[in-house]
C-alpha cells in the first residue's frame, strides 16, 4: 500500500503569540521559537506507518512550506515514514486552494513505489483551520473522502472509518484509493527512537520548487485575540483546603440552575 501523508510545519509556542510589525505573520524570529506539526497530522503519519507495517508498501510525507520544513519532515521519517517531498515556498502563505493544487500534483506524481492508494492528512491545519484541503484533493483525484476520522481499519482494500459524534461513533466505508482526513485521537503516535532518528537522516527528502498562485482566500492581516482576562472571584481558599467554598458552590449551582 502506498500512502501519502500531507503535513505542515507550524510555529510552536505556549500560545502567547507575537506578531510581526506589519501584523501579517506570527513573529517567529525569537530565539526560543520552535516549530512543530499539528497533532492531527502526527496521527495521520502514525496511521500511515502502521498501515505500511500491516500491508507493506511505503509512505511519503508531502508538505508545502519553507526549506526548513525538512526538520518536521525528518521527524516523521524518524517515526517510520519512508521519504519526504517538500514543495518549497519562499515563506509566504499559500491559501487552501493553492496548497491543495500543489499537493494534488504531488499525489498524482505518485511515489517511486507507484501510485498512491491512500492520502492521509489532518482534518484541519493547526494554524489556519481551513477544513478543506483533503476534500479538494479527493475531488481533483475523483476519490472518495472521509473526514474527522478517529478510527481506521483497512480490510481488502476497503477503509472502515469511524468518526466521533457526541457520545457515539459513525461508521463509513470507502474503497481505496481514497482520501482520509483524521483527528487527534485516531491513535497514539509513537515517539521517534534514536535508531529512527539515525535512519531518518539517510532517507530521501526531495525539494520541488513551488510557485504560489494568487490567493483567493487572501490574508490581509492578523490580530491577537483580545484576552478577556478575568480575575476569578475566589469562593474559598486555605481553610479546610478550600472546602470552605462548598456552600458558595452549591449556591452557585442553584443560581445557574443546574440543581
Amino acid at each position, binding site marked *: 500500500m502506498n500512502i501519502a501523508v500531507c503535513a505542515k510545519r507550524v510555529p510552536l509556542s505556549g500560545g*502567547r503569540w507575537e506578531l510581526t510589525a506589519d501584523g501579517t505573520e506570527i513573529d517567529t524570529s525569537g530565539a526560543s521559537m520552535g516549530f512543530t506539526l499539528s497533532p492531527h497530522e502526527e496521527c495521520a503519519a502514525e496511521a500511515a506507518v502502521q498501515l505500511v507495517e500491516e500491508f507493506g508498501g511505503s509512505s511519503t510525507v508531502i508538505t508545502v512550506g519553507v526549506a526548513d520544513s525538512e526538520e518536521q519532515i525528518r521527524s516523521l521519517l524518524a517515526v517510520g515514514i519512508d521519504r519526504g517531498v517538500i514543495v518549497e515556498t519562499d515563506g509566504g502563505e499559500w491559501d487552501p486552494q493553492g496548497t491543495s493544487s500543489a499537493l494534488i500534483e504531488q499525489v498524482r506524481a505518485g511515489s517511486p513505489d507507484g501510485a498512491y492508494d491512500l492520502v492521509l492528512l489532518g482534518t484541519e491545519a493547526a494554524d489556519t483551520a481551513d477544513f478543506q484541503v483533503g476534500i479538494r484533493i479527493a475531488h481533483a483525484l475523483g476519490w472518495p473522502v472521509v473526514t*474527522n476520522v478517529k478510527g481506521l481499519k483497512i480490510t481488502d482494500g476497503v477503509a472502515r472509518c469511524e468518526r466521533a459524534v457526541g457520545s457515539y461513533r459513525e461508521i463509513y466505508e*470507502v474503497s481505496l484509493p481514497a482520501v482520509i482526513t483524521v*483527528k487527534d485521537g485516531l491513535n497514539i503516535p509513537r515517539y521517534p527512537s534514536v535508531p529512527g532518528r539515525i535512519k531518518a537522516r539517510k532517507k530521501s527528502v526531495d525539494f520541488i520548487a513551488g510557485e504560489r498562485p494568487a490567493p483567493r482566500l487572501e490574508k490581509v492581516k492578523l490580530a491577537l485575540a483580545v484576552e478577556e482576562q478575568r480575575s*476569578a472571584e475566589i469562593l474559598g481558599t486555605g481553610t479546610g483546603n478550600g472546602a470552605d467554598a462548598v*456552600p458558595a*458552590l452549591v449556591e452557585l*449551582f442553584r443560581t445557574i440552575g443546574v*440543581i
Partner: protein
Amino acid sequence: MILVIVDHDRGVLDPTSVQAISGALALDSEVDVLVVGAAGRDVVGELASFGANTVHLAVHDSVTDFTPVASARAALELISRVSPAAVLVTGTPRGNEVLAHIAAILDLPMAAECLEIALGNDGVHQVVRNRWGGNIMETARVHSTLLLAAFAPHAVRAESAVGTGTIAEFTPALSDADLAVRILDRVGEGATGVGLTEARVIVSGGRGVGGPEGFAILEELASLLDAAIGCSRVVTSNGWRPHSEQVGQTGTKVAPDLYIACGISGATQHIAGCRTSKTIIAINTDKDAPIMGYAHYAVIGDLHTILPELVAATRAAKE
C-alpha cells in the same frame, strides 16, 4: 439572498448549525435554508422559529442518513436555481465538510471559522476568522462571486425570529459516486451519560486529578449535575480517560452553561476549547494557574478534599 445549510441528525436539529441562520439574517433579510433528507421535515417548524422562511428540503430515496457529497450536490443544484450571494453554514464537522465539497466542486474559495462576515458587491468579501483555535484572528478577503463561508461554532448566537417555514421540497439528481460516502452504522449509541457538545454542564479534570481512579469523584458530581465528563490533553495522553472526552483545540470545543475545571492549569490548548463557556469554575491548588485568568469563580484548594464535600452538599441540596 443567502443560503444557509443546516444539519439535523435523523430529524433532530443540530442547534449549533442553526446559529448560521441568525448570522445570515444579520447580513441579509432574505435567507433560505437547505435541509437534506426526508427526516428534515421534522425540523422545519423549529427552523421557522429562528426566522427561516423558505426551507428547501432535499429528499432522495437513497439519502437516509448523513451523506456529505449528496448534501453538497443538493446544495449545488439549489445554488444554480436560486443564485444566492453566499452559502453559509456553522462550522460543525458536518457543516464544514459539506461546504468544502461545494467549494471543491465549484473550485471556489471557502472561509472557515468565521467570526464576522461582510458581503462585498464586487466579488470581494471580507471575513474575520479564527486561527490557532481562536488565539489569533485573521482578516481575510475572499475573492469569489459566491461567498462560501462557515461561522465558527458559537461565534454567533442563535436568535429567535419569526419565519414562515415554507417547505420547498425537491429531489436532487445524485449519482452513485455521490452516495459512496455515507453513514453505514452507528456504534456506542445509547451509552449512558451526556455527550460533551450537548451537555449544559461539564465537569472536567486535568493533571491535578492524579490518575484514572481520581475521576470517580468527578463522575459522581457529574451524575448529580447531569453533566458530561471532560478532561485536558495531559489526561488523555496519560491514558486516564478516552480521547472523546478531551476538551481543547485538538479535542472537542465546548460552550456549556457551566464548566467546572478541576485540577486543570489552563494551557492555551485547553482554554481554546472551553473559553466560550458561560460560567467557568476553577478548582486548583495554584492561585496563579493560568486558568484563573479565564475562570469566573475559583476555589483555591485540593480537589480531593473539596469534591467529596461538594458532592455530599450537592446531593443534600437536591433532596
